[in-house]
């Protein structure tokens, strides 16, 4: 169980997250939905423990262990991982080496992970994870990397961004695959096709959980109400 209790986070005197509480279980899929700028990605970065996203108040627990002050590396070693919305590029690093950062990972597993994200291993293993990969290819490599880590909890920040619409099925397939393996998947999205795959969703507005519950209801409410709402970037402005 991964638990966030009354998390508050501010930056440059702006209150971005204003007291959020959430619970995630392994083997289940969760949605974090909301308009642009409401703080969805920030929640993901806070869970991962990125250096600029240390909380001002509140606590994070992983299986009852307080990890609020735990460094990012240790969080990863304890089973939390992040699929970045825009993954970084690395000059001179091959896809193969990138996917085998953990020396326990075998080449056959790497090839299987590439197959899962619709990248042919023969064509991609020796490509570099640099500017020459398209945005979509880079994102797919990152998804393969997250699959190989076999985390307890994976935060997927806009998993479909930068990926062609034909690959939405692949994303859905990956979410199912991770769930079957027991990973708790936390999907940050505003795409209905992705959000609807989750069992339970949190609707974020202005840095707060505005609504939570079964995903079909939350997604319906979001589509009906939030699309026309003027609260875009509300969290950062206030």
């Amino acid at each position, binding site marked *: 169980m991964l638990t966030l209790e009354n998390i508050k986070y501010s930056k440059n005197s702006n209150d971005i997250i204003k007291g959020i509480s959430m619970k995630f279980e392994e083997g289940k899929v969760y949605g974090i939905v909301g308009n642009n700028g409401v703080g969805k990605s920030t929640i993901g970065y806070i869970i*991962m423990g*990125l*250096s*600029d996203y240390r909380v001002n108040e509140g606590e994070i627990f992983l299986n009852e262990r307080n990890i609020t002050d735990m*460094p*990012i*590396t240790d*969080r*990863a*070693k304890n089973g939390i*991982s*992040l699929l*970045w919305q825009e*993954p*970084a*590029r*690395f*000059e*001179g*690093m091959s896809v193969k*080496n990138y996917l085998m*950062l*953990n020396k326990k990972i075998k080449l056959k597993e790497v090839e299987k992970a590439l197959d899962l994200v619709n990248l042919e291993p023969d064509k991609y293993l020796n490509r570099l994870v640099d500017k020459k990969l398209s945005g979509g290819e880079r994102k797919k490599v990152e998804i393969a*990397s997250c699959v190989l*880590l076999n985390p307890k909890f994976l935060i997927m920040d806009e998993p479909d961004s930068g990926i062609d619409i034909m690959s939405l099925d692949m994303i859905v397939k990956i979410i199912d695959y991770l769930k079957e393996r027991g990973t708790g998947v936390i999907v940050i999205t505003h795409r209905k096709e992705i959000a609807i795959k989750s069992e339970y969703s949190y609707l974020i507005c202005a840095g707060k959980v505005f609504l939570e519950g079964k995903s079909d209801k939350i997604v319906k409410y979001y589509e009906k109400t939030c699309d026309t709402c003027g609260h875009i970037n509300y969290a950062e402005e206030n």
Partner: protein
Amino acid sequence: MDIVKGYEEEFNQLVDIYEKNTEDKSLRNPAVATIIVSGNKVVGLNSVKGMHINSKVRGDGLVIIDVDIEDNTVIPIPVHLCTGFLKKQGEQILKFNYMIGNNVKVKFKSHCILTKVEKLHHYMESDMYIGKNSHVVYEDEHFHDERGGVFVETITKMKIDENGYFASKFYETKTRVGRINVVMDIELKDNAKANLESKIYGREDDIIDIKEILRLNGENSSGIATSTVFATDSTKAHVINEAYGNAPYSRGHIECNEIVKGEGVSVSTIPVLKVNNEKAELTHEASVGRIKQDQLETLMSKGLTEDEAAEFIVNGLLS
């Protein structure tokens, strides 16, 4: 292989060090063109068809080596240039003159083996002419003593004739630099192309100076000069990249990336772009600073420590 009489031991020592550092056994292969210099003398020479090598040593110790390659020659195996210094201190001055004919294809692999010296000034000046339609690749890798007493100066002047192509890779990443001054000054004629890449890893109090100049004098000529320096501890690094667009449709791009890690580091970069023809186009990119946080945190979110992540990123950059 023509090993000069009386220098067999020096030849063997240099070859042994090279093989230990690279696991490459080419230097003893009779099918490989080779020039091996130890100190101020040539200790081994081997040529191949279409290639002529002459060497002489001037009274003041200057070693002059002339390399001529005939028109229409394709040398399938890289030519090895190995310069070493086996005494504890001294000076090594070398002058290479390359005359590469038309329609030639050749690759040079140069290695400087300076791993056993306490104090050395290694000066190498090269003049290279690349004939029309020729394709030349030059890879230069250095292995220096870890105490930092090596001062390397390598000055290259080059003319690339019409449709010629030149690519160079200068790497000093595996051992301590000491002090290094690299200058490459390249003139390109019509449709000629050049691609220069240098990568240097500075440690302790190393001093690094790089100057790369592209003179795009020919119509449709193009060049790229990229320098990457990883400066740690109290390394000082100064990089100047210059490109001159002097002809119509000439295109040049210069790029410098200096990554720093250490409180005593001092690095700088100066790009110089000068267009003397309205149809020329020049661009540059530069970055100086620590490793990007998003790169570090991407790897840390996969379980690497900050130091492991930094090492991984730098190894990629310098590979």
